[in-house]
């Protein structure tokens, strides 16, 4: 079966790939491009572990076809840090121990990044609401919310 030829932008780089018509963007990222930061939790859009930003919208990459990325702009967790310098959200997740097993973390970070891009000073309720599409079975969420709040303070001061 011939693949679909796709030309897209991922984390600022032009990327071209061939994928199957029914192959998800998540599978393309992980299996074809070696970008394994996005995780497959449920594969049905319920857990948010595969969250990426597609043209400024947070989406589950498991519910996007690889073919749909043609001509669009994809941001993944791999583009979040600048070289060795972590994004404030990443730094605060470490400081607050806002993860245990870590499977959900890339998705939470992308969701938090998207949230702060649209609302730089969210209330606790807005943070919890903004991250409601991401499931974590380890932390109980509190440390994640604290980490985001701390990152907000730091980013405002910067």
């Amino acid at each position, binding site marked *: 079966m011939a693949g679909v030829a796709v030309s897209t932008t991922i984390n600022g780089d032009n990327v071209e790939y061939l994928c199957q018509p029914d192959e998800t963007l998540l599978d393309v990222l992980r299996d074809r491009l070696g970008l394994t930061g996005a995780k497959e939790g449920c*594969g049905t859009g319920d857990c948010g572990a595969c969250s990426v930003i597609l043209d400024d919208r947070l989406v589950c990459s498991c519910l996007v*076809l690889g073919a749909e990325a043609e001509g669009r702009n994809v941001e993944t967790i791999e583009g979040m840090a600048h070289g060795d310098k972590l994004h404030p959200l990443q730094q605060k997740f470490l400081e607050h121990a806002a993860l245990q097993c870590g499977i959900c973390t890339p998705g939470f970070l992308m969701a938090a990044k*998207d949230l702060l891009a649209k609302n730089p000073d969210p209330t606790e309720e807005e943070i919890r609401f903004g991250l409601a599409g991401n499931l974590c079975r380890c932390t109980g969420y509190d440390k994640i919310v604290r980490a985001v709040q701390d990152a907000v303070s730091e980013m405002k001061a910067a």
Partner: protein
Amino acid sequence: MRYIRPQSIEDAVGLLAEPDGTAAILAGGSDLLVRMKGGFIEPDLIIDIKAIHGLGEIRETAEGFSIGSAVPCAVLGENAALKKAWPGVVEAARLIGSKQVQGRCTIVGNLCNASPAADSVPAMVAAGAKAVVVGPSGRRTVPVEAVPAGPGKTSLAKGEIIEAILLDKRPPHAGDAYLRFIPRTEMDIAVVSAGVNLTLDEKGTVKTARVALGAAAPTVLLVEEAAEVLVGSKLDEAALERLAKVCSGACRPIDDKRGTVEFRRKVAGVLARRAATTAYKRAGGK
């Protein structure tokens, strides 16, 4: 399997009408990809409609609003004019899924997935929304409630596709509201739901009403008797009481793990009453 991104609605109709194989329309994919992954369907052709001109836009016209079938629900919430005119439709659309799903899912997808529990559908039916259907023999406009034919089934013929949802321009003193019951606060589908749309006269008497119930029957219910109860009232206690009773009586729900028949009947009445109260306030009634 093929993936095609047509540039025009006519091309999409042509592809859908191809005699051989099964075709699936892809807008947000939040139902389609889940069903493909679960092995429930394996289309021969996926038609991505997002590149079709106009389908990704909300247009404000002299008659009201035209919401293209590829507009994600999140965009409905970002349109101030639409939110002001039809807050009930927008709040219903915004209840679907998570933030991640909101960036993709569409009200036309919600309608054509034909789940009895679809959140946006009772709100659209209460609003008197219409669907613009394009097919091999041209365009037709149908009331939204004519689209679902049963769980997972629509009345659309082969080759037909919904191009847009139309909502009327609002007269003064009008308001709508949608409420659903779910056992948690987010990310769930309705156990039962109610949409109410009212227009009032200057004195706050209900002039016209539409009441729709979701997850209360195999398809969305437009409860005409409930509307009759409200018309002519100022939404006093007696009218609300009768509204709840009529709505409970109109339900033909199922028993399942999410709710019993008895529970759904009772809650349908409660939600209709509360949604009516909110719609009345939004319409400027006191």
